[in-house]
């Protein structure tokens, strides 16, 4: 347990940054879930990749799975065609910094932007983990960048 706490201390900043950008409203909860999931999945970590890379990928999966589940729950209550994707973006106030502008992006555009432009994922990898096409990933990235440029120059 002490060893795992050491790993938590070493990696929490990186994982929390990811969670805060991918799921701003639930960053603390997602960070906690990512570490609990990592603990549960430790037997599958065989040391072939760096622990940080393994943990990072696991955290991305936790966030996307939670988001998909939440979207399904929402879909039972109200009819939605494209959760987050077709929703009008929340208004972006002038002078807002990039972190806040990212947080204000529609869900799917934000997730693609964070994974591609901040975390360095390729469109193929994003398409695989988000269950979307590469074309959709590129489209969402284009949309996110456009909205962010507008926010930064507002």
């Amino acid at each position: 347990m002490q060893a795992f706490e050491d790993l938590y201390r070493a990696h929490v900043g990186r994982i929390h940054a990811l969670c805060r950008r991918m799921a701003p409203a639930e960053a603390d909860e997602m960070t906690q879930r990512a570490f609990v999931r990592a603990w549960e999945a430790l037997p599958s970590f065989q040391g072939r990749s760096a622990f940080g890379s393994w943990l990072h990928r696991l955290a991305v999966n936790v966030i996307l799975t939670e988001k998909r589940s939440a979207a399904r729950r929402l879909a039972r209550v109200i009819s939605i065609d494209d959760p987050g994707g077709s929703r009008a973006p929340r208004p972006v106030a002038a002078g807002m910094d990039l972190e806040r502008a990212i947080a204000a992006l529609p869900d799917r555009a934000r997730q693609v932007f964070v994974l591609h432009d901040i975390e360095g994922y390729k469109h193929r990898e994003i398409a695989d983990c988000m269950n979307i096409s590469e074309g959709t990933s590129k489209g969402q990235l284009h949309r996110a960048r456009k909205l962010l440029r507008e926010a930064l120059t507002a």
Partner: protein
Amino acid sequence: MTPDDPLFKALQALPREIAPERDLWEDIRPALQPPAPAQPAAAPWWSGLLAAAAILLVAVGTGQLVPEPPPAEPAAEAGWSEQMASGMAALEETLASHRDEMEPEMWLIVDQSLGEIDDAMRRIEAAMAQRPDDPQLEVARARLRQQRVALLRTAVNL
């Protein structure tokens, strides 16, 4: 995006790490369940031994794996285990003193491997309580002790 793009410049300035505003560990720790105890019907006594051996392979790497020790003779078990116990205690003490110098990832693997071996040892000893005359159990216990010493030796030299 080009380097002149304001968005590109803003991205470069983003911090790679962001510390949570509160210590999340206090909420995480209670949610970490210890590994569930093995069910005898579902897992035979030797499954822990296999798991320990598998994790040991990961921990020390095939290049550093010590040669497999010969099967221990039950007659030699008593004297040998006394030596082993004192050697093991010394190694554990040395490992504890090096603990802060080890990479957390490596420490985790060593810690996990020791836990697996100890779990397998408990199962073997439980089986020995039921079948005290089973020579295979004696051999399995002796091998497990040797694995533990080999792992400790390797960890001390990391």
